[in-house]
């Protein structure tokens, strides 16, 4: 590992992407991801990479589609309203089986909302987001270090399964500074010459990338193949973290990303009062760690989901727990973040 540096999440994920060999980046400015696009604008030319500020998020994601089709490591970033605009392209990238990384530094919504951190794009991120029968692997960091670590991880998953991968940060993680270390070595890019455009191995090796299948039976077969890949992703890539699990806690907290940081502090604070809480933090939001949440909820009196939204992941928690015990929700809209004291008192209310 290299030396520790103090960086904003937006910069750390950008630096990690470059270190991981990403040399193509296309994006459109939007707060609170500005540091990311600006970092790329500064650094890409220094490594002979491509930085291009697109005319819109729609154009940016289609530039990503083009570069991905040529088999290079390519990334874009945006924030909630911009990600909405990218959904058409993400659907095409998923359908065309192309690897690409999308960083979403989410903000308050709906509409123009605000620029404060929110987790209200969980549904959009984990349910495909665009049109059609597809999913996108979604990684949810809860520290700046993890935000950075997820860049190479996202490229690896994208290339292994030929899929777009989203890193779902938020305005808090993007803007806050924390010490971060970058590894010395990164996973090499998987050889794309089997499918990439402009990469003929023999004169007749013509490559076509397409998402149009007029014959319903062919589209059915293609979609089923895609879902077989999703089964592999579920099997191999589901990630989560548990905390204070062996404490004999009667209550389980489920939270991801920034909300999980606040939840962790609440677990520690209540422990001092003699109240034990177990915590599970999904790291992949799709595939969702349903089995792990179900396992963690076993024998608990109550499961409490904490989110910076009006309640989106809580639906997955309910699917996981499947009526085994009550699932409660603590959430906040508008980009208002819980204070540690506040979350402690809200949890206390739920368990008293």
């Amino acid at each position, binding site marked *: 590992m290299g030396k520790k540096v103090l960086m904003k999440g937006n910069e750390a994920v950008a630096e990690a992407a470059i270190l991981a060999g990403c040399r193509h980046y296309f994006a459109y400015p939007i707060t609170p991801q500005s540091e990311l696009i600006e970092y790329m604008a500064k650094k890409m030319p220094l490594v002979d990479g491509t930085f291009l500020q697109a005319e819109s998020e729609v154009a940016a994601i289609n530039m990503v589609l083009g570069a991905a089709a040529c088999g290079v490591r390519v990334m874009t970033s945006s924030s909630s309203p911009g990600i909405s605009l990218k959904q*058409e392209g993400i659907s095409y990238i998923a359908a065309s089986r192309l690897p690409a990384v999308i960083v979403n530094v989410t903000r308050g919504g709906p509409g123009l909302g605000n620029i404060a951190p929110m987790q209200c794009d969980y549904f959009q991120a984990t349910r495909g987001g665009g049109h059609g029968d597809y999913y996108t692997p979604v990684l949810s960091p809860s520290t700046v270090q993890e935000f950075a670590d997820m860049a190479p991880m996202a490229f690896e998953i994208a290339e292994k399964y030929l899929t777009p991968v989203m890193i779902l940060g938020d305005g808090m993680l993007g803007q806050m500074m924390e010490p971060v270390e970058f590894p010395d070595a990164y996973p090499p890019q998987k050889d794309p010459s089997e499918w990439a455009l402009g990469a003929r191995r023999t004169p007749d090796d*013509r490559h076509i990338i397409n998402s*149009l299948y007029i014959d319903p039976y062919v589209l059915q077969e293609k979609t089923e193949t895609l879902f077989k890949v999703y089964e592999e992703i579920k099997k191999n890539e589901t990630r989560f973290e548990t905390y204070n699990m062996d404490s004999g806690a009667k209550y389980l907290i489920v939270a991801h990303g920034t909300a999980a940081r606040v939840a962790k502090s609440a677990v520690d604070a209540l422990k001092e009062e003699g109240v034990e809480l177990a915590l599970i933090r999904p790291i992949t939001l799709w595939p969702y760690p349903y089995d792990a949440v179900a396992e963690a909820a076993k024998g608990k009196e109550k499961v409490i989901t904490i989110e910076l939204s009006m309640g989106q992941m809580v639906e997955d928690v309910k699917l996981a727990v499947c009526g085994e015990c009550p699932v409660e929700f603590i959430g906040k809209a508008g980009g208002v973040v819980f204070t540690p004291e506040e979350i402690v008192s809200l949890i206390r209310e739920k368990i008293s």
Partner: protein
Amino acid sequence: MTVFKGRTKGLTDAKLSYCPGCLHGVAHRLIGESMEELGIIEKTIGIAPVGCSVFAYNFFACDVIQVPHGRAPAVATGMHRARPDRIVFTYQGDGDLAAIGTAETIHAANRSENITIFFVNNATYGMTGGQMAPTTLPGMKATTAPYGRDVSDTGFPMRLCEILSQLEMPNYIERVSLLSPKEILKAKKAVKKALQYNTDGKGLSFVEMISTCPTNWGMDPLKAREWARENMLPIFPLGVFKDRAAEEAKEKEAE
């Protein structure tokens, strides 16, 4: 039977899916022949739009990708940036390029990406069944303009060559027609020149081809060509709107 000229290697053996009398086949052939003559089939990437030519990936012998409606110039940008050693062209109709993809078209042209945009203008949305396009003529009927295009309500036909030629950076902009053998030969020169410019890294080439849609216009192919000559050419005049590379070469010669 004597075959004077066989099928170009620039096209595959697949049977074209276009309506009888459609000029897409001609436009395809011009591009295929040009790729073959320039020896660039294997290093060219074509981009198929949404519209009748969505199936172009079946026909061009180069690598091809099919992309979202109107986004071809953005996809081409990403491709050319990823593989500057490849020739990238888009093949787009008027709805794709001049309505939903106007922003992508204008900005790719403004950056003068080293790509070629082939723009086939037949004043209608062919695939979806003859709706009004940005290039539909004043008074011309369409399924979404059943009483004829009222320009006071829906605007005047957009002239893309003229709009793009106001930009400083594009290299080459020309409007040609596919309405007669003589014009087709001229169109071929423009198509080949555009691809040659890209091979030489000269920046953006834009070739608009005036075409027809006998099916949706409700005319036989010959009548459609006549109609296009009488009605389209006055609004979409043919000619070279920009040729920076040629101008620069001339200037150099003068020096």
